[in-house]
């Protein structure tokens, strides 16, 4: 009687044969390709260079601003305010949903036309930019004000600073 080879039986469904190997290889490559496509698509859709206006705004000479005056620059979305203590700048973009707020000289406040948020400007014991009422979740941020070499006031919209830091000129 010829000697029979001993084959260890494999549980059904657990064989790892050539077909299973190629299926795993195929699915693995497809998954890697899918992840790669997703990653490259994300990178492709995120612009690397933006042709947006510079965050730094030239607000002109300090002597153009009267004491206790609020000046809104609609194009750059900032307020330049001259208080007794010095200059400061508030972002004019509402912290709720990004609408452009407006200075209401008759009420002495800043108000947003979209959803009715209101903010203090000159109020005793209140930080300028703090919310009076409305849906805005945060106060209007203070933006960094500096003086250029030519003596112009420069506001950097990308740099938020601690409230109550005035620029004395």
């Amino acid at each position, binding site marked *: 009687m010829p000697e029979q080879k001993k084959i260890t039986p494999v549980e059904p469904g657990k064989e790892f044969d050539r077909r299973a190997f190629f299926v795993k290889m195929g699915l693995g490559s497809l998954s890697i390709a899918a992840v790669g496509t997703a990653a490259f698509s994300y990178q492709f*859709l995120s*612009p690397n260079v*933006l042709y*947006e206006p510079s965050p730094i705004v030239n607000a002109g000479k300090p002597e153009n601003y009267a004491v206790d005056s609020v000046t809104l620059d609609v194009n750059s979305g900032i307020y330049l305010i001259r208080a007794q203590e010095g200059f400061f700048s508030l972002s004019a973009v509402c912290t*709720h*949903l*990004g*609408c452009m707020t407006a200075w209401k000289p008759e009420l002495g406040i800043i108000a947003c036309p*979209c959803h009715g948020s209101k903010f203090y400007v000159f109020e005793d014991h209140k930080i300028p930019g703090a919310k009076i009422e409305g849906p805005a979740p945060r106060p209007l941020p203070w933006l960094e004000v500096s003086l250029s070499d030519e003596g112009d006031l420069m506001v950097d919209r990308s740099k938020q600073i601690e409230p109550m830091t005035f620029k004395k000129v």
Partner: protein
Amino acid sequence: MAKTITNYFDELRGTRVWRSIFRSGTGSSTLHRALAIQQNVFLHLFSTKVRTRMLSFSTTWYLGTLTFGTFLILVGTGIPLMFYYHPSVPQAYADTKDLQFVVSSGLFLRNLHRWSAHAMVFLVFAHMFKVFYRGAYRTPREFNWVIGVILLLITLFLSYTGYLLPWDQLAFWAITVGSNIASAVPGMGNKIHFLMLGGNMVNANALLRFYVLHCMILPLVAILFVGVHFWRIRKDGGLYAHQSEPGTVAAQAVPAAVKGVNS
């Protein structure tokens, strides 16, 4: 005997040219009428045979068909509008005004596009309510309800992306507000905002992105899902009519049989 219009039509349907274009032949037998539906690439999505009461106004109020009708009007008016509209910051607003005041029939096309868009949003909601209150979303039609929800979202995205294209104050601030809502998504909100606008503010990139979404990507996705939506009506047993459902038919049959024995 004088020929009727039907005779002429049958003659036309028997010609070699007609037979080479349309696969179904002449004849008004049930088989031929069924073949006319089943052998047509567009109509074969639908059932070859429907009960008359399913096509009655009260069953559906034709809301789904009306929604599709507005979609066809939107495609038909939107493509001509694209010939005069440049999705760029210096031109978009002026092109919109030109369409209104300079281009022949431009005002008609633009207004038709706008009103159909409003009508489509309204009809999609009305269609959903009708399906919901009739219980037509139930087994085996759950998945078609899910496709319907996807189509609702596509409709709203189409509406939203189209809103920016006139590039006026209303458009600019609406998209500013809308995209800021997107940035409230926890964790990845700012990334979504950046990807959506192609920048940090509503600008040239955002206009172009919304244009491509509005005119290419979203309509193509909508057509795909509309196709599946229609096809599923047939696969799920036709339009929902309560009296024709197997369960109702069986329930009505039993008392009738019992009654028959007693009398």
